[in-house]
């Protein structure tokens, strides 16, 4: 099947408006007879469910947690971008569009990104109307801060809990519709497969996680909003339950999977402490506004720190290497995430890492304390303030900005980050790749949509900070409600979709068979055992730096782990009860397939772009020596993979990317 992105004609600035003016609408009386299933209720799914219900559709929403408010969107800390230009620093829709395409290393679809920038301002208006308590200045107006990869301040925030507050906003909008009966909410339910009738998505099979009951749900359209697949690495900043099952199941039923190798390794996470580690914790990128990143400049100092003989505060200023400021003077500590992560890895690989494992760098706030402290001393008219007083005043400001992050750090590491620099190290955080969708956010299966992190569309090969929340809400509040209406306008005469059909019978049987297999398999090893092994292969060979040899090996190793998994996995308990191991088994089975396709995609793409760094493709000389080298001649396309049984047999379809409004050039943050 040839990929058709369905991008409307016309100048980029007019595409979305013209599109909205010309689509088919469903009249309010007919909307009452149309059902929509939304799987996943984070920012994208929650906002979509609420908006679709407000419009009058009957929505069934599914979440594996006990409340939509607990989706992992809640963990996003730093903020949400919008091209409001409240700061008057030259921001505009075009600039947000440009920054996003450039930040994504020219591997995203221009028309989608422009639309994203275009609706970004509306998101802030909507959230404020809902009562989201964004940070404000003393004049009562909204405050902004800056994030990596951009030269303006366009990030709106609610302390270090922006994702939480936005999700609570979407959740409150959902609650209003649940109370009206327009959303039927299925908490503690997991979608286990999609049902197609005559080639169109018409329902899902879900498991009630409390009773184990297998349920059939039908609808005129199905929306997948289940987030990313970062947990393929086992250790990531994702929630423990975050999984790719819904996305992978629809892939196996005909939805192409795009750019799986585009994964974001976030530079500022709390380093790993031991083998028992279950997850990694993110420290918001916003900290890079005020923190300076460094490692010792001398190898002997680094060694002494690793052995616990020296403390970071013992290292003199001239013996510190602020390597981001050194390598990238224009952007300094605010280079994009992929660049910052690789730079940290480079220093640690060279032996300059700073904790016991040698895998950490410092994020130091000492100079920010002084800078803010002096400012405060002036504001409050304190003359001849001592260094200690200045530091204290400055710490107060940092606390008001990032207090919860500092507290979180102290609880995990048991060190006070106001007194000693934080230790950070990169960790898997976000997946830019995902289910392929067209301009309408529809997958290659008719009537099956994919929104938020679960799709691939807007971030190219690298996502800029504070853009995930923007995309999730843009898709859910402002894009999908239009595009899905255009599709559903053809369904007004269809009537209720029956679940008593052979299509539902067949898919339910597949689901039941798999559950029975897990329960009856007399294996010897736990699900986590396999998940950890998969994660290690992914991190070692498909991690921050990749090469053909490692990737080929990774594919073979993942396949071998998968085969062993199906022989040896052990799941205690029964199918007809709450069974956490059974839930995990299904998810890890899917990760074991996705991981192999991930490696295959990384092998196929022999260029370095964004979060995907191929050692074979670097600049050999000039100012950019050693930096990633993109290859636009051969790889300016989206890889969309079609499922053919084994992941290794997946067939590649290319969506060529055209850049009409932005000139392709090498990203330079120097």
């Amino acid at each position: 099947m040839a990929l058709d992105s369905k991008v409307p004609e016309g100048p980029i600035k007019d595409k979305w408006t013209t599109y909205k003016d010309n689509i088919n609408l469903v009249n309010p009386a007919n909307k009452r007879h149309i059902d929509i299933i939304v799987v996943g209720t984070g920012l994208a799914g929650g906002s979509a469910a609420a908006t679709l219900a407000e419009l009058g559709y009957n929505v069934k929403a599914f979440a594996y947690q006990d409340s939509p408010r607990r989706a992992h969107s809640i963990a996003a800390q730093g903020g949400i971008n919008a091209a409001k230009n409240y700061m008057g620093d030259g921001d505009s829709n075009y600039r947000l569009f440009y920054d996003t395409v450039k930040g994504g290393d020219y591997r995203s679809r221009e028309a989608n990104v422009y639309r994203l920038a275009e609706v970004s301002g509306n998101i802030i208006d909507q959230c404020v109307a809902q009562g989201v308590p964004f940070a404000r200045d003393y004049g009562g107006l909204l405050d902004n801060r800056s994030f990596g990869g951009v030269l303006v301040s366009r990030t709106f925030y609610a302390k270090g809990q922006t994702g939480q507050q936005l999700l609570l906003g979407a959740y409150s909008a959902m609650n209003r519709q649940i109370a009206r009966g327009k959303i039927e909410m299925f908490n503690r339910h997991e979608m286990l497969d999609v049902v197609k009738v005559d080639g169109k998505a018409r329902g899902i099979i879900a498991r009630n996680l409390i009773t184990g009951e297998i349920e059939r749900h039908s609808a005129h359209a199905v929306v997948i909003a289940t987030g990313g697949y970062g947990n393929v690495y086992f250790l990531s900043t994702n929630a423990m339950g975050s999984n790719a099952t819904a996305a992978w199941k629809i892939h196996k039923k005909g939805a192409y999977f795009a750019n799986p190798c585009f994964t974001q390794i976030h530079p500022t996470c709390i380093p790993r402490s031991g083998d028992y580690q279950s997850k990694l914790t993110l420290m918001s990128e916003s900290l890079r506004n005020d923190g300076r990143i460094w490692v010792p400049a001398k190898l002997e100092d680094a060694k002494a720190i690793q052995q616990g003989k020296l403390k970071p505060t013992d290292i003199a200023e001239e013996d510190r290497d602020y390597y981001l400021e050194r390598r990238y003077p224009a952007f300094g500590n605010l280079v994009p995430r992929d660049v910052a992560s690789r730079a940290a890895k480079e220093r640690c690989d060279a032996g300059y890492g700073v904790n016991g494992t040698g895998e950490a760098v410092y994020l130091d706030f000492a100079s920010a304390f002084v800078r803010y402290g002096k400012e405060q001393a002036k504001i409050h008219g304190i003359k001849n303030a001592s260094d200690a007083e200045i530091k204290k005043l400055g710490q107060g400001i940092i606390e008001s900005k990032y207090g919860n992050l500092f507290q979180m750090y102290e609880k995990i590491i048991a060190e006070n980050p106001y007194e000693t620099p934080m230790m950070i190290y990169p960790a898997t955080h976000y997946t830019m790749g995902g289910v392929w969708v067209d301009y309408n956010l529809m997958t290659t299966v008719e009537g099956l949509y994919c929104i938020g992190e679960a799709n691939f569309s807007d971030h190219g090969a690298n996502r800029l900070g504070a853009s995930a929340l923007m995309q999730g809400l843009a898709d859910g509040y402002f894009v999908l409600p239009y595009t899905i209406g255009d599709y559903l306008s053809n369904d007004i005469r269809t009537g209720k979709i029956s679940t008593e059909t052979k299509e539902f019978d067949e898919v339910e049987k597949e689901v039941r068979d798999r559950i029975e297999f897990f329960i009856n398999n007399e294996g010897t090893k736990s699900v986590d055992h396999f998940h950890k092994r998969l994660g290690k292969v992914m991190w070692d060979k498909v991690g921050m730096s990749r090469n053909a040899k490692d990737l080929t090996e990774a594919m073979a190793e993942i396949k071998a782990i998968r085969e062993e998994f199906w022989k040896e996995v052990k799941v205690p308990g029964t199918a007809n009860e709450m069974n956490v191991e059974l839930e995990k088994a299904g998810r890890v089975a899917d990760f074991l397939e996705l991981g192999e396709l991930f490696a295959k995609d990384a092998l196929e793409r022999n260029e370095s772009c964004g979060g995907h760094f191929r050692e074979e493709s670097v600049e050999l000389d000039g100012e950019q020596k050693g930096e990633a080298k993109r290859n636009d001649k051969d790889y300016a396309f989206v890889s969309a993979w079609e499922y053919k049984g084994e992941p290794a047999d997946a067939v590649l379809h290319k969506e060529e990317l055209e850049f009409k409004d932005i000139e392709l050039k090498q990203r330079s943050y120097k």
Partner: protein
Amino acid sequence: MDLTLKIWRQKDSQDKGQMVDYKVTDISEHMSFLEMMDVLNEQLVNTGEEPVAFDHDCREGICGMCSLYINGEAHGPDRGITTCQLHMRMFNDGDTITIEPWRAAAFPVIKDLIVDRMAFERIQQAGGYISVNTSGNTQDANSLPISKHAADEAMDAATCIGCGACVASCKNSSAMLFVGAKVSQYALLPQGQVEAADRVKNMVAQMDLEGFGNCTNTGACEVECPKGISLENIARMNREFMSANIKG
């Protein structure tokens, strides 16, 4: 360190349930409490026993899923944190640790340490929102200045993660800190004032219907709240509730 764990096991909501003893060994002080539980569960799976079911998800203190009552305290002995942020350095070698689910009539046990918190959902559905549709032509966000003080206070109330520790800690199983935080967030902001009276009345009515107890000002909820939600929120809710009823 080596530990003895006394854990509440209950097969399902119908089962009577009981405390069961387990041993874990070689626990590192750097582990989180839930990582220690992972070690126990891996041990149980390997011996063919059913692992202990407990709620958890983000493991960074923000989703509000985790909900363990440890040694008689919601979220354990440390302050200002959730169970997932509790670290084993708070315990000593040889300790016996008692782990129970939230105990409240309005939070029935689903399995082992997992409780049903749907009562919180229904309270919020009763009025915890501002009635505004998504239209794309809402007024510009900066056309409504809000004093920094009010915005910050609303934010403090809004940080509630809905974990239920307040209910579990209260001798009356009162949900007033939770409902107070929700009511306060909206009461402090100018948006949604037109429906403020209905909101507080409906939310309080639903809270009573769910079987939560009343507040007797012991302040245990505030002490155990992982997000530091203050008792002021209860006072504010009472004020809102009273004025809503006086106005009729």
